[in-house]
């Protein structure tokens, strides 16, 4: 853990909006502004604006950038075309997840990575060990702003401040000029809604934050904190590193094998373990659970039972604001119970019923 707490470059905006701040992954960040439920609902029905400046932005430049990334990432960056991005992992030799990240190809020798705040210094250090005169990595914590604009009105709001410039397609990224600066906009997010992630230098980021709030206000946009970010991502079945992913959990165990490319010659850390998980099955697998209204919600760390036998543990759980009952991701031993089957989780010494379900709890975009 970092010894000191960093302030977001947008901290002054959060204080002006009356946000309640909490420490998270070494950063002092807004957990909520108007209230978690209101912010969650605004993102599902209109739009939400999230500060993601704590997330690590790393640039890989040089003619060996692709080759270097190919040897480190579980999803094959050679598949990406200019302007395209995908979800990937940095795994350890045991096949466990050091970090999950988004990798964008800006051009043949220029890649942009967005990593978790808690892993940013470690990943940057790891990448720098592979530097050569033909590949350089840059992007120290706290040197840029990032924000996510998410929800059904996100496109309409962003179009206003971009004055008609066409927006990137889903999972694509493009460079724009705004307030005289070059910025990056990716059509990605962590809510299950259509939306954008906007990366810029700090002075420009402050202007974009203000412009989006103003343009979005008449359309129902709310600034949103980490609280609703977590409930939104879990409804969409998206994993959180440190809970659903960890150095002890492989991407295949997390049910994310589609983002691990084993159909290529290049090896990467942990590949033999992941081959084994793919071939003969992983010892554990992540399943979705749905609770019932009026029952205590599932939470991280609660044990999961099938009959008398404990089969695993909940890695993330929340009372779903949209569905009105608890939802959870659980890591259980294989063979795992199937969708629709009954299991139980244990809350404060008593068993609560749940059904196994798809990990995508909401039909989102």
């Amino acid at each position: 853990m970092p010894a000191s707490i960093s302030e977001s470059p947008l901290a002054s905006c959060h204080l002006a909006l009356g946000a309640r701040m909490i420490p998270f992954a070494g950063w002092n960040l807004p957990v909520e502004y108007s209230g978690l439920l209101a912010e969650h609902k605004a993102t599902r029905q209109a739009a939400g604006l999230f500060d993601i400046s704590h997330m690590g932005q790393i640039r890989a430049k040089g003619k060996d950038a692709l080759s270097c990334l190919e040897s480190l990432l579980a999803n094959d960056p050679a598949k990406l075309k200019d302007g395209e991005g995908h979800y990937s992992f940095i795994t350890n030799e045991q096949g466990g997840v050091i970090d999950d990240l988004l990798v964008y190809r800006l051009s043949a020798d220029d890649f942009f990575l967005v990593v978790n705040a808690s892993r940013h210094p470690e990943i940057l250090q790891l990448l720098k060990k592979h530097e050569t005169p033909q590949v350089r990595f840059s992007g120290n914590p706290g040197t840029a702003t990032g924000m996510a604009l998410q929800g059904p009105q996100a496109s309409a709001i962003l179009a206003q401040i971009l004055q008609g410039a066409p927006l990137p397609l889903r999972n694509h990224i493009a460079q724009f000029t705004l307030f005289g600066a070059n910025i990056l906009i990716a059509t990605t997010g962590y809510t299950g809604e259509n939306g954008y992630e906007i990366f810029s230098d700090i002075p420009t980021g402050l202007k974009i934050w203000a412009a989006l709030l103003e343009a979005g206000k008449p359309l129902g946009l709310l600034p949103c904190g980490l609280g609703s970010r977590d409930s939104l991502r879990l409804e969409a079945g998206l994993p959180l590193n440190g809970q659903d992913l960890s150095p002890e959990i492989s991407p295949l165990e997390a049910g994310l094998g589609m983002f691990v490319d084993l159909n290529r010659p290049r090896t990467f850390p942990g590949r033999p373990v992941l081959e084994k998980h793919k071939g003969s099955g992983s010892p554990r697998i992540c399943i979705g659970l749905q609770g019932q209204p009026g029952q205590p919600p599932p939470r991280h760390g609660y044990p999961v039972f099938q009959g008398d036998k404990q089969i695993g543990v909940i890695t993330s759980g929340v009372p779903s604001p949209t569905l009105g009952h608890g939802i959870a991701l659980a890591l259980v031993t294989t063979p795992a119970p199937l969708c629709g089957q009954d299991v139980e989780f244990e809350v404060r010494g008593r068993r609560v019923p749940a059904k196994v379900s798809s990990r995508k709890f909401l039909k989102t975009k």
Partner: protein
Amino acid sequence: MNTPDNLHYAKSHEWLRLDKDTGTVGITDHAQSALSDVVFVELPKSGRVVKQGEVIATVESVKAASDIYAPVGGTILESNETLSSDPGLINREPYGQGWLFRIKPDSTKPTGLLSSSDYAATLPH
């Protein structure tokens, strides 16, 4: 934050109102604000005998489950059933309709609790 004068407060953010030999317990305005939107409550059954400081209920927001401690020892008389269908009452009226349970205290002179001004002094400014 609102801290009415006529109540006793626990450092763990519960309040106790004594009317003769009946105590009513809830969570403070500060506690409901820190928890944010309450979506689920688990309350004690009547007749349960409880010691001061024992975990007696759970209040859950979207983010987390929080234990509620008995501000006094005694016997549970009733729980606020309305909260199971409308847990948001705890946020809207923490000192009113959002009460959690009533208790017959072991003593009508509770010890170890704070006055309104002493409790308010423990809160962040």
